């Protein structure tokens, strides 16, 4: 890794063309199928759906149409709830895996914890439907045991969307926080104990601040993946309240309105960029 970039003299006979021949295909692909589409989307967002011509109406619609605005509010609320709940659930779990599970069992315990990660994403959301449906597992158990008489409305609610998301992100955050906890040298804990701190103070003043960067990276990932996801809210939330990705897909699917869909996508990306800048301090992800 450290070798990168300082071995230019390793190739006496190679012309200057060779390195460019190696990197150009990848760069070209990225420019052609990632950067160019993005520019196309930018242009598209500035055109009128009917008749073409440049206009800012796609953007102004977002700010003036309350239902579009509401989709962004819903998205931000759901994402915030999911991020907070996932971190709160995953942190103690990662801590238990790192501290309470014996060293030999840790790898297995972690692999088990992320195993469901590898079910198909569409299928995973659908399986939550089996659990949460009107006559699904939870309602059957609750009515069967006599706790409730009428089945609860669990599917097609915000609760269902949040549950599906949290399920996914608990696994992701457990991975990142676990890695962070394992990197901490045990001498910090010993030093804190030697200086007379109890376990609670050690945790609050030593462990937690040291793992904060890991938490922030995980939380940022959660934010980005959650706010841009279409599948989980569409399957589990139904159409009772729309989130941004659902709104984008709706413009394409039902109305064929590419310019508006482009504008909404760009707004969504802008929000992610703002989130990135807000936590950039913690996000100095090493470019290896």
């Amino acid at each position, binding site marked *: 890794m*450290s070798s990168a970039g300082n071995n230019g003299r390793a*190739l006496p006979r190679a012309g200057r063309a060779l390195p460019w021949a190696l990197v150009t295909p990848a760069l070209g692909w990225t420019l052609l199928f990632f950067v160019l589409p993005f520019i196309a*989307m930018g242009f598209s967002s500035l055109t009128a759906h009917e008749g073409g011509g440049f206009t800012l109406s796609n953007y102004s619609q977002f700010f003036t149409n309350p239902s579009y605005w509401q989709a962004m509010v819903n998205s931000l609320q759901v994402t915030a709830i999911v991020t907070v709940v996932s971190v709160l659930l995953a942190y103690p779990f990662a801590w238990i895996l790192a501290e*309470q599970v014996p060293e030999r069992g840790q790898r297995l315990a972690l692999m088990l*914890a992320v195993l469901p990660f590898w*079910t198909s994403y569409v299928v995973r959301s659908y399986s939550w439907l089996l659990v949460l449906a009107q006559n699904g*597992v939870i309602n059957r158990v609750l009515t069967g045991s006599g706790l409730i008489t009428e089945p609860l409305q669990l599917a097609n609610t915000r609760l269902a969307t949040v549950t599906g998301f949290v*399920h996914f992100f608990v696994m992701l955050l457990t991975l990142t926080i676990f890695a962070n906890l394992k990197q901490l040298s045990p001498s910090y804990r010993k030093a804190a104990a030697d200086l007379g701190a109890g376990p609670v103070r050690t945790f609050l003043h030593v462990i937690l601040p040291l793992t904060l960067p890991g938490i922030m990276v995980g939380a940022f990932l959660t934010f980005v993946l959650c706010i841009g996801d279409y599948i989980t809210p569409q399957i589990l939330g139904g159409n009772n309240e729309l989130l941004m990705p659902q709104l984008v897909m709706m413009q394409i699917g039902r109305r064929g309105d590419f310019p508006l869909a482009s504008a909404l996508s760009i707004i969504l990306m802008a929000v992610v960029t703002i989130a990135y800048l807000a936590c950039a301090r913690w996000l100095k992800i090493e470019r290896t």
Partner: protein
Amino acid sequence: MRQFVRIASWVYALAVYGFIFLPVVVLVLFSLQSTSFPIPPFTGPSLRWYDAVLSDARLTSALVNSLMVAVLSSATAVTLGFLSAWGFARFVLPGSGLLRGLITLPLTVSYLIIGMGLLVLFNWAGVPKSLLAAGIGHVVINLPLCFAIIYSQMGDHQINIERAARDLGAPEWKVLLLITVPVMAPAIFAGFFLSMTFSWDEFVISFLLTRFDTTLPVEIWNLLRSGLNPKTNAVGSLVFAVSIVLVVLFELTLLRRKPA
């Protein structure tokens, strides 16, 4: 106190495992349902829904499409990723930090937006929706991953072997094919298998960019319109099984590295 923490930890860990495994267990269990609804009470076991999946021409052709797109797009991504990783690791290029950033940039953008961009571009360029279009999108999302994995595994010991080969008179293409590729094989396969799992599971880009022939996740999506159905459970369980195989291959290839 210590005892209490221990017991509380066990209870908490079991509860989280329960939460994580609940949907998967329900999925697999009710794929074995013998009646038509994948809900309690359990009436199985029966393999009739697996039978139904494997005799469904739409699903099996979607499965073949998915595998084809996954293999071809991953091979493309890993080839481009490997060549560029080698280029960046071995040569000084002007602005190489920036260019590497450009290659990894798609990692930070949601699949929906990548798919949207390609849809708008292809629409303008008159490229019809197809598996090829979706495959191009899959390369966009997997190229940064392959690049990052392979680039991070390019170490100093490989440089020396390459230099030795050159000193012995090997031309550049021979160094690449006979030295670098075999030495880097674990990272290359790891990148390939990881790409396969992502492409195999990818939905939004395929949904936006294909029309008639489509991939398995999109076909599963279409199945969902017919409501809860044990056939969906069966096909979901099969997809899960394939993913697990790919993940195990990824783990094995990446963990076998570092002989010294």
